[in-house]
């Protein structure tokens, strides 16, 4: 059975939602949304998802090939103001793709380089990251694992709170912050190292640990039982195909490489 790296990553990312129960899962971007949708169809059927517009759905919409919201499986109206009522209750798990992630798990989607008053590159702005990060669980999806994303210093703009003792608000400890997993094109990581250090828990097929370390701007811990990332099952691939009939996932990772590296 063959599968693409994107499909491997989607399956790995979908497992982040296994134990969430009745929680609103929000995947921002095509592959994260596909991962959340897959989880809702497989390992966590109690999960909640929106149509990315204004309704909660009892069955996720496809991520490609949809031309109208008519006929979708609406469950309740869920406008953006109401999303915040849910966010601040804590019953949400977001899977997002930051431009920078530092060793504390702090992230940046706002701006890069230059000064804050005149950045070299203006990105989106902090969006909902500050509120998400102090309210509910978050996981990260990184299509290209590199030292540009996993920066050696702090993020240029710290948009989300992480496990940084110097920035911890008064009255807070690390248990108030819930960063779960990082899924990249090389591996799956969590924050299970000493003092919440980022830790490799599984490597994608054919990826050596040294490659992860070389492409990360800080030292990562390694789980004692580090293993190979679980391969997609036929059932998962069938559901992915159903959720993404136009194969938009093939355009998300450069050159759409296979999930198992070929031997050189």
């Amino acid at each position: 059975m063959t599968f693409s790296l994107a499909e491997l990553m989607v399956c790995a990312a979908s497992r982040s939602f296994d134990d969430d129960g009745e929680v609103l899962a929000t995947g921002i971007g095509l592959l994260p949304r596909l991962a959340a949708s897959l989880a809702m169809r497989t390992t966590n059927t109690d999960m909640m998802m929106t149509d990315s517009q204004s309704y909660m759905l009892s069955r996720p919409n496809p991520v490609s090939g949809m031309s109208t919201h008519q006929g979708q499986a609406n469950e309740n109206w869920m406008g953006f103001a109401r999303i915040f009522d849910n966010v601040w209750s804590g019953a949400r798990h977001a899977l997002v793709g930051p431009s920078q992630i530092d060793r504390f798990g702090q992230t940046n989607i706002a701006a890069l380089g230059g000064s804050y008053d005149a950045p070299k590159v203006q990105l989106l702005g902090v969006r909902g990251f500050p509120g998400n990060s102090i309210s509910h669980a978050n996981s990260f999806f990184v299509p290209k694992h590199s030292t540009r994303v996993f920066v050696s210093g702090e993020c240029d703009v710290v948009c989300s709170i992480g496990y940084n003792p110097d920035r911890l608000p008064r009255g807070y400890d690390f248990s108030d912050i819930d960063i779960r997993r990082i899924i990249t094109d090389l591996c799956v990581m969590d924050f299970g190292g000493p003092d919440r250090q980022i830790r490799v828990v599984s490597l994608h097929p054919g990826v050596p640990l040294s490659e992860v370390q070389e492409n990360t701007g800080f030292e990562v811990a390694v789980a004692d039982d580090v293993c190979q990332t679980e391969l997609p099952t036929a059932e998962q691939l069938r559901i992915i195909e159903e959720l993404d009939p136009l194969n938009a996932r093939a355009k998300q990772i450069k050159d759409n490489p296979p999930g198992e590296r070929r031997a050189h």
Partner: protein
Amino acid sequence: MTKCVSAAEAVSVIESGMTIGIGGWGPRRKPMALVRELLRSDVTDLTLVAYGGADVGLLCAAGKVSKVIFAFVSLDFMPLEPAFRKARESGSVEVREIDEGMMLLGLRAAAWGSPFIPTRIGLGTDVITRNPDLKLIDSPYDDKEWVAMPALNLDVAMLHATRADERGVCEIASPDHYMDDWFARAAATTIVSADEMVDSEYFHSPDVARRVYWERNVTSKVVHIPGGAHPSSSDPLYGFDVGHYKAYAGLISESGYTAWANAFLGESEADYQREVGGIDAIKALPLPAY
């Protein structure tokens, strides 16, 4: 009673130095015809509060803005708004960058006459370190620190509705009214452009009345502008104009604001609509699916 005025009359209440809130979200249901009227005026030195799209981009590019209070400025399908990007990267506008939810809390505080609303949002991030005017406070009920999100008091809010009557009852028939009700309530003066004008009887239907998110005494002025949200969407009447946004991005990036204004802005909304293909073309723009 009638609150109906022309776009020029409505926008004439806006003076240099004012704080202006703009409703909608990114490329969705923005009061763009009112923004264009503002572009044609000599007003300057504005502070904008918005879930921003080309509204913020254009006003920055035209030199109307001294400060932007924002969480994002984006066109969704085109993640980075080209004119805002230029303004930020050249350092030509001051910013107060806050979380999307903080903006909602700031508008609510203003609407409720409260000086601030306490929240956890922003703690541990550069939202606090980069905004020294955002104060941290003690709680009388616990030992944690809290962000005191200040009221975002608006001089004027500009909003776009699907339909309105002449007394200022406004229907938002789109899937989401976003934070428009809070913008309306946070403002001293609220200007609403509407695609369609209706008789008051139209609102007798309970289903329609449920799509009215603020009371008419919150609406100050109503401007009838079919297609007035273009190039943003006014779901269910029309979608956003991907083609125009692309043309806009190209002109802004390669030649700057004046090139866009020369090509499209004109002396009036009629001029503008002629340049973008006319009202029938606007009404034919397909609704987006996300």
